[in-house]
């Protein structure tokens, strides 16, 4: 299995508070991705990174920001959490663009 960890694994927060999710990899893969998974929608790409300090928006990026200061870490921040951001968040990595993606264990976020 690819070495990907996510923290925290579960989080409950209140509307309006900032939240940061962390993805850590030990594979030295160039590409990292953040997805959210909601019933009926499959996996939707929020942001991705193609290198240190190189990031771009995905399909559902509004309300989210990301940062990548080291190859191994990719952070997802919700500046002011809303109830619509209640979801399961998955981080993924790949060696090449559109290559096989390997997923982390996920973070279940509940915004009350």
């Amino acid at each position: 299995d690819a070495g990907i960890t996510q923290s925290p694994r579960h989080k409950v927060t209140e509307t309006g508070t900032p939240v940061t999710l962390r993805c850590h990899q030990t594979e030295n893969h160039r590409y990292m991705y953040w997805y959210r998974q909601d019933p009926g929608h499959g996996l939707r790409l929020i942001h991705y990174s193609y290198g240190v300090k190189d990031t771009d928006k995905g399909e559902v990026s509004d309300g989210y920001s990301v940062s990548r200061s080291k190859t191994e870490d990719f952070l997802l921040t919700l500046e002011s959490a809303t109830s619509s951001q209640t979801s399961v968040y998955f981080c993924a990595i790949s060696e090449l663009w559109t290559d096989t993606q390997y997923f982390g264990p996920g973070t279940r976020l509940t915004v009350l």
Partner: protein
Amino acid sequence: QQPVQSPQAVILREGEDAVINCSSSKALYSVHWYRQKHGEAPVFLMILLKGGEQKGHEKISASFNEKKQQSSLYLTASQLSYSGTYFCGVVNNNAGNMLTFGGGTRLMVKP
């Protein structure tokens, strides 16, 4: 644009076969198949590139029909362990586009 998967759900008895389809409105460059068990991360099954390749994984194989812009996943002699939700992900037109996932097909295999 999100690919369309069908059926949305299927129930099988152990040993039966199933086919899951994934259709795109745009030309396909590649198709990726994943399986996700409840409460777990999606796990990669296989990737298919345009050219009609058929690839296999255990008793699971897939086809890629470039003209019809679709891929099919074939599960033969299903086992209890095959239960889960299957997702296809597509890259449209060329390798520069991003991977987009379908809504998933829930498969349940009963003894």
